[in-house]
């Protein structure tokens, strides 16, 4: 049996990929060696940092779930709907992805100064509150989740859903019984992308929810606060906590997704 001739293109592609990976590992490694286990220990024992870890974890999880709730219907509409203005809607939903994050925060801040915003604030106060942290994370995280769900539904054949209609289902029931179970890995991916994006979210939270310790301080805010007082060791230690959290949570979610 003859072996296929080696194509040098694969070597070039491997070198490019390896170089990129090394660059990333180098960045993480240099940050890791700059910090000591003692710095990490002190960071983990700080009441403020522990609060920020807790707030980051639960707000990101809530944002991931809320993003999924929005992304499933919107992603389905974009993937399967045929209506005038679809391309325009598709482009409009990408705006939070391309806007500078600070501008998103500024837009949120200004919106809640308007009459409608003030009325909403009377029911749920968002500006400079934890609800504001979640909203700021959601505005950007949801856009990424919508992209993911749209791709998921586009990859799934519409035919099984059509067959379910002929077998007596309404469209809603066909989606519930046939399409959503088939899209479950995409749903896990969409929620985890929104979660991961929210964990690193900083600009909109700083502008819209503020950086008050023990109130609206999430992990990226902690890094910024520690840097602003010249405490580089603590900033790096908090960054390492974020890296570890992200790796553990995303690896667990991916493992869970593969078992589904």
């Amino acid at each position: 049996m003859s072996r296929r001739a080696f194509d040098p293109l694969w070597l070039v592609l491997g070198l490019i990929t390896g170089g990129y990976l090394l660059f990333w590992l180098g960045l993480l490694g240099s940050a890791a060696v700059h910090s000591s286990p003692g710095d990490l220990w002190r960071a983990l024992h700080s009441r403020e940092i522990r609060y920020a870890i807790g707030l980051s974890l639960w707000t990101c999880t809530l944002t991931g779930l809320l993003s999924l709730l929005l992304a499933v219907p919107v992603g389905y509409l974009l993937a399967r709907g045929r209506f005038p203005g679809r391309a325009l809607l598709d482009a409009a939903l990408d705006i939070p992805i391309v806007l500078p994050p600070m501008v998103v925060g500024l837009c949120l801040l200004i919106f809640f100064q308007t009459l409608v915003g003030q009325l909403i604030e009377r029911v749920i106060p968002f500006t400079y509150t934890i609800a504001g942290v979640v909203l700021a994370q959601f505005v950007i995280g949801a856009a990424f989740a919508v992209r993911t769900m749209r791709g998921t539904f586009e990859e799934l054949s519409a035919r099984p859903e059509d067959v379910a209609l002929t077998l007596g289902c309404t469209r809603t029931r066909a989606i519930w019984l046939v399409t959503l179970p088939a899209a479950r890995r995409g749903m896990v991916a969409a929620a985890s992308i929104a979660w991961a994006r929210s964990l690193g979210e900083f600009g909109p939270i700083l502008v819209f929810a503020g950086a008050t310790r023990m109130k609206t301080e999430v992990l990226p805010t902690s890094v910024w606060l520690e840097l602003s007082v010249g405490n580089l060791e603590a900033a790096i230690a908090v960054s390492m906590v974020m890296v570890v959290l992200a790796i553990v949570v995303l690896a667990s979610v991916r493992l869970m997704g593969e078992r589904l």
Partner: protein
Amino acid sequence: MIRLDQVAWRAGAFALENISFTVPTGSYGVLMGHTGGGKTSLLEIICGLRRPTAGSVWLGEREVTHLAPGERGLGYVPQDGALFPTLTVREQLGFALRVRRRPAREIAHRVAELAVPLGITALLDRRPAGLSGGERQRVALGRALAARPRVLLLDEPLSALDDDTREPLAELLHRIQRESAVTVLHVTHHLSEATRLADLLFRLQAGRVTETTPTLQP
């Protein structure tokens, strides 16, 4: 009975016009035509998945043109089977009855009753990913027949199969149609398949349907 009366449908430059034909109750009708000629679209119009721009669709004595697909009392087997990817064979066969909220015992009985003649009893706990082409088509056929439809629509059910699988499945289709007296409309572009099974043969050409004699002479 399946009856189409002056049905028209248009999508961009493609059009079906003045489509009229009847498959009498209990007959096996085969519709032939070139790939891309609109055969699948015509089946989807009968199913209710596409709305005709003109004309009417009748199943038995009932006009179903404006009814939802699930209210038409038909079974549909698409070209690739289109099995539900996450359900086991058992769940696929019981799907139509589950949707109708039939008791679990009745569903289990019907699944067992269908699985024997289709030869899929050993596959009941498998999912579609591990099934061969012939097995998938048998499951799709069983799923379509579960609620005892009066009409069965088959879209190229044998086209993707190899020679060894095609003939037994053709025999199975013939036997099931005779035993259940279901009215069948089977779409294909293979003349040998059409003459093997058809009581009535129709040709779809240039957007129109004509009835011909089911012989091997084209």
